[in-house]
């Protein structure tokens, strides 16, 4: 059964809201500053540089997503939920931030290709692209969960910063920890470590999305 409001149209509504409110401009600017800072001098081999920027994409994508969600209308979300169901509304809420993550990932990889003159195989940059997508996904999902929990903007910021720092420091904690420990120093990780670095973000994202759906049922 097709939903009364097609998901693509619901996502366009969210996108129009985000564009009109200019809510993601600050996060976008911050991301450009991060890339400029990394590549202002010799960033070293491409893979460690990409691993570093991927780790930073977690808090920045969470910021962009939180700003987008804050700009959207709670009334319209209720209308859409009644018409389309929670899962479709979650998809519509997530699509504009996911588009932002894709753009940020493209900027990071293109920036690396253009500005990092160190030789590296194309697979390194492909891996860097996947790492950015994984970290960006977790950032979006974290913002969705915090928004569904209706915590204040200050608490959201604290949680995102704490999660980003913890993930960067703890080697096994996705998304940043396994990425940095596997490729941050330019090493060659084993198959299991590489699989966890790439699959861990997907596991965390799925968990956060389930938490989001559960929290949205209660409000």
């Amino acid at each position, binding site marked *: 059964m097709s939903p009364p409001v097609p998901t693509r149209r*619901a996502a366009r509504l969210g996108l129009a809201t985000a564009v009109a*409110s200019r809510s993601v401009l600050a996060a976008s600017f911050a991301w450009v500053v991060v890339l400029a800072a990394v590549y202002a001098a010799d960033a070293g081999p491409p893979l460690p540089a990409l691993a570093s920027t991927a780790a930073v994409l977690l808090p920045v994508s969470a910021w962009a997503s939180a700003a987008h969600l804050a700009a959207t209308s709670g*009334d319209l979300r*209720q209308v*859409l939920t*009644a018409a389309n169901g929670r899962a479709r509304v979650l998809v519509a809420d997530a699509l504009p931030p996911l588009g932002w993550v894709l753009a940020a990932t493209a900027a990071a990889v293109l920036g690396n290709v253009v500005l990092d003159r160190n030789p590296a195989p194309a697979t390194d940059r492909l891996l860097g692209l996947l790492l950015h997508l994984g970290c960006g996904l977790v950032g979006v999902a974290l913002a969705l969960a915090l928004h569904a929990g209706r915590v204040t903007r200050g608490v959201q910021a604290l949680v995102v910063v704490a999660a980003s720092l913890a993930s960067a420091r703890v080697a096994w904690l996705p998304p940043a920890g396994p990425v940095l420990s596997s490729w941050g120093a330019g090493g060659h990780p084993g198959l299991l470590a590489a699989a966890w670095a790439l699959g861990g973000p997907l596991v965390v994202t799925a968990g956060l999305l389930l938490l989001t759906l559960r929290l949205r049922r209660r409000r």
Partner: protein
Amino acid sequence: MPGPRRSDRYGRRVPGAALSASGLGFRYGRGPWLLDGVSLTVPPGGLLRVRGGNGTGKSTLLRLLAGPVAPRRGSVVRTGPVAYLPQQTGDLPAIPPQRLISLLSGGALDGVPDVRADELSRGWQRRVLLAAVLGLPCRIVVLDEPTAGLDAAAVAALADRLTARLAAGDAVVLAEHEALPLAGGEVLDLGGAAPVDLVEVVLGGTGSFHGATASGGRLHLVVPPAERDALLLAALRQGWSVLAVGVHR
């Protein structure tokens, strides 16, 4: 205590029901139960009016019926998606209202001021959201205080539109403080409101109506609560405007 089962989006149908609820219970966090043991059935073409004082759970009940919130106890069964107008408004996005309606329901609304949706007056915001919601292709309509902020002409237009949808077999649930002039319907009273013996209606216009003649552009009528809806509907259709409806003291 957990409920008998979770709500179903398109669950098992109660024969002859477009929307049904059984043993609904809800509370915020670990607070007191706001609703408990509410059961109801709305058939296709049926109208349910939910009434009650402030804080008695009207809006919460409608959110449970429409789907944005899941009940803590009991279940809701809907035969399809719901066109739901929430009670709270005022946070419409900063986009043109026609674009908002177009993206949400593909419809349009005449006469909307040429400003962003978030800059519209409260009444216009209500009309914009109402137009978008009523444009959704849903056979179940759940409206939370739809007349709040609307002028008499908009109330009359809404009544006509809902009458047509009821005649077409759509199920309609309304939460109302001020009764919408619609004929018939079941009433679910959640309590909390003082009993009303007589209702005073003030109409704006000239001439005679209901055995009384207007003076100074106003016509005061006192009627039993049961006659209020029909009186308001008749007055609006004859071109009178409703200036006030209240308890007769």
